[in-house]
């Protein structure tokens, strides 16, 4: 698979487009929760608008991610950046699922004028920061020894070759 010159860049391109959908979905929802954008509709409507796209994009991220791992398993699985990205991704999914449950049960969030509670605003900002770090870690996979130095297992692979 790695021998086809189109597989990795095509999968990476789809991966980037999928993370773009996740990023802006989280960003716009967060801006609505904080109360600075996407006015005129409720937080619940905003979540209903963006969550299905974000979950679909996450599924696409997983699919293209698996293909990228199969194409270059050592580069991916031996990179510290990859595992930091995965840990953050799991945390993001858990936090997002809990956030969505809060939005479902809190009737006040169906009000078009309502802003998020202080805790929801903190969660919103944290999730945006998490997606930004996930994007950075995704790119850092290619530069793992540069980022993590000798701590990166890939550094020792290169040193041994």
């Amino acid at each position, binding site marked *: 698979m790695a021998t*086809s*010159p*189109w597989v*990795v*860049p*095509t999968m*990476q*391109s789809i991966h*980037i*487009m999928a*993370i*773009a*959908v996740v*990023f*802006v*979905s989280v*960003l*716009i929802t967060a801006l609505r929760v904080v109360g600075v*954008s*996407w*006015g*005129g*509709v409720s937080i619940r*409507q905003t979540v209903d*608008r963006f969550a299905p*796209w974000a979950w679909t994009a996450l599924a696409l991220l997983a699919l293209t991610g698996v293909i990228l791992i199969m194409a270059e398993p050592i580069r991916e699985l031996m990179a510290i950046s990859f595992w930091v990205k995965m840990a953050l991704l799991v945390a993001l999914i858990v936090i997002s699922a809990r956030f969505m449950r809060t939005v479902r049960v809190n009737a006040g969030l169906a009000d078009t004028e309502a802003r998020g509670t202080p805790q929801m605003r903190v969660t919103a900002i944290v999730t945006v920061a998490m997606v*930004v770090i996930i*994007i*950075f870690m*995704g*790119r*850092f996979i*290619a*530069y793992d020894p*540069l*980022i993590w130095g000798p701590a990166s297992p890939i550094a020792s692979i290169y040193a041994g070759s």
Partner: protein
Amino acid sequence: MDFTALLESLQYSDLAQWVNTGGATYPVVESLHVLAVAMVFGTILIVDLRLLGVASTNRPFTRVAHDLLHLTWIGFALAVTSGILLFLPNATSIAINVSFQVKMALLVLAGLNMFVFEFVTARDVKSWDTTQPPPNSARIAGLLSILLWAAIVVFGRMIGFTPAAGADPFAAL
């Protein structure tokens, strides 16, 4: 100064050397570029899907565009700045990279599409701001925009995979 000499002077400039230190600078700038491209592509996609009448249909088009396009411009400014920084250390080879040239041509086309939409289709936006579906001209502009920006992402990623100067990125097809 001819174009090649200009590219060489850019490639050996202090700024290019700073980006290409061999440390974390280049990966950080590249990550910022991906973040910026994600912001541009993602926000434009939301506007385009509204133009197509696929999503955000409970809000007027102008309100969707107003909420998002300043984020698009912030992302675009960051993408251009980080893109120039990524270009500098390898200016002579990237300038003749076919994928880079295609990406630049697609960016011009995306700009033209936006220009035509802004000054032709959107002139009577009040008449279709809340109607469903939007007029065909708006839907065509939205579809073209999605295709062009998706292709920009693909050819942007292809730059690093087009090995030799002037190599044909379509040769594998």
